[in-house]
């Protein structure tokens, strides 16, 4: 059964005010188009969870969508500070819950595998464990030593961008596969965005590449260039220039407001956004071909 719907419809149907959202992707495949759609629809009081909030959550926080962030690295990757999330937390206007990368991803791993918590070896850096009461210790029943534990994270909604999916949501991903699979399995509802919608036959031609099975997916949205200014491996490059530019834009609330007015509220959807970026940007983000060798699954 086809689950294909426009992205705006998927957000309307599956995202409620107050929800915990995990928009997945470690630098790669960050679903910016979905973030922009949540801003356009005026989503409020969201709990935004991501290992790296990245610009997508900086923009959503600036637009007033969030009441809390859950994160493990609050920076603009390769550039510096994430100005809005930082200013709001410093001013006490935004709640936060903080982990190390491994703590964050262990929470998602527990959520995705149906476990109540996940153990980790101790790191002896106790300050974060004292600051965040979700960090606990338990005794390993086998050795008697202490291990650190974090509780399962089960977001209300996971949003996952992929290179290609079929109409049911069986999805192929390649490149950096940070936590897309974990987020999808951990969440109650899954919105999938895809660069390409392909036939089931394409998916079945390479089953090892299917990270997300369609039966856990609620909506499939065809959104080319969804990840810009993040990237999609093999489709378009990371827009490093924009990550640097955001550092300037986000220096003032006015700068952010005019960005949102022009690039989020000023366009209807991702198609308009991509056209507005213009041919020079399209050209700059083009990537060359470097295919993998074909694998033979065999006929049996």
């Amino acid at each position, binding site marked *: 059964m086809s689950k294909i719907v426009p992205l705006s419809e998927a957000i309307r149907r599956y995202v409620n005010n107050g929800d915990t959202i995990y928009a997945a992707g470690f630098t790669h495949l960050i679903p910016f188009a979905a973030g922009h759609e949540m801003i356009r629809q005026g989503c409020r009081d969201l709990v935004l969870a991501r290992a790296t909030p990245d610009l997508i959550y900086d923009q959503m926080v600036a637009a007033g969508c969030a009441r809390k962030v859950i994160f493990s690295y609050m920076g603009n990757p390769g550039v510096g500070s994430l100005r809005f999330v930082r200013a709001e937390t410093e001013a006490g206007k935004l709640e936060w819950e903080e982990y190390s990368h491994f703590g964050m991803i262990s929470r998602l791993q527990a959520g995705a595998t149906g476990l109540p918590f996940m153990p980790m070896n101790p790191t002896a850096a106790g300050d974060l464990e004292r600051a965040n009461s979700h960090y606990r210790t338990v005794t390993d029943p086998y050795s008697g030593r202490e291990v650190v534990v974090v509780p399962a994270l089960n977001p209300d909604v996971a949003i996952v961008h992929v290179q290609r999916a079929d109409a049911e949501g069986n999805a192929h991903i390649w490149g*950096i596969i940070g936590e897309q699979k974990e987020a999808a399995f951990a969440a109650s509802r899954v919105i999938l965005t895809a660069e390409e919608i392909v036939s089931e036959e394409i998916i079945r031609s390479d089953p090892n590449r299917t990270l997300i099975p369609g039966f856990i997916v609620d909506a499939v949205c065809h959104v080319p260039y969804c990840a810009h200014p993040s990237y999609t491996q093999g489709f378009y490059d990371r827009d*490093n220039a924009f990550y640097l530019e955001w550092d300037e834009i986000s220096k003032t609330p006015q700068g952010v407001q005019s960005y949102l007015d022009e690039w989020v509220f000023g366009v209807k959807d991702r198609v308009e956004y991509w056209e507005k970026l213009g041919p020079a940007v399209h050209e700059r983000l083009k990537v060359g071909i470097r295919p993998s060798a074909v694998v033979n699954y065999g006929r049996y």
Partner: protein
Amino acid sequence: MSQTTTYSSSELLTINAARLLRDGDVVFVGVGLPNLACNLARRTHAPNLLMIYEAGVIGAQPARLPLSIGDPTLVSGALAVCSMYDIFAFYLQRGNVDVGFLGGAQIDRFGNINATVIGSYEHPKVRLPGSGGSMEISAWANRCYILTPHQKRRFPEKVDFRTSAGFLNDRTERDAAHLRGEGPQAIVTDLGILEPDENGELVLAALHPGATVEQARANTGWPLRAAEEIRFTEAPTEQELHILRSELDPDGIYLKE
């Protein structure tokens, strides 16, 4: 001191970091200077260095200088790509990483690092990015190296927040925590190299050309002791500088200053 070649502080840090790497090391690497140090080591004395990125990339051979830790150039041509959980669990926690690079706003007398907040945690004066991978890297990589400019505000007696463990209050305390890693082994600055003594206290072990013990002391927030036999690092060589400037960072993105 006579000096035929000039070089920037970043070049000095990168070259000295590269020299600490051994052939065959598995290195958990970040972008910026550590990435350049690893690539320099690979092109000089450590051709079998294996680079692992926290984005889940193993054996990367970047064709261009990556700006972010998750740059697509790290993936194309890599040996393997895995999930974030896998990179921290199978690779780091399991004990497959020899070297980790760390950075932070503050490093204290016992090598503890703060990358989280200046001031109090609940009401920070400055909110920094936070741990990322460093909490686990400092605990589980066999050896850790820290690259930092030598400034008093970066070297307080005690850090405001322990994002990652050095030797805690002294070496016996780290030993008692049974961490698999040996902790910070060298802090490379633009003046020299600090190393932990038998108690885990950082002492001045080496000076770069032209730098003095007094300079290092004046720029350290605790009464810095000098090792009994202080070493002097060799100035960056023409070959090292040539590789950095012509091959690794031709536009001077990381190495200008």
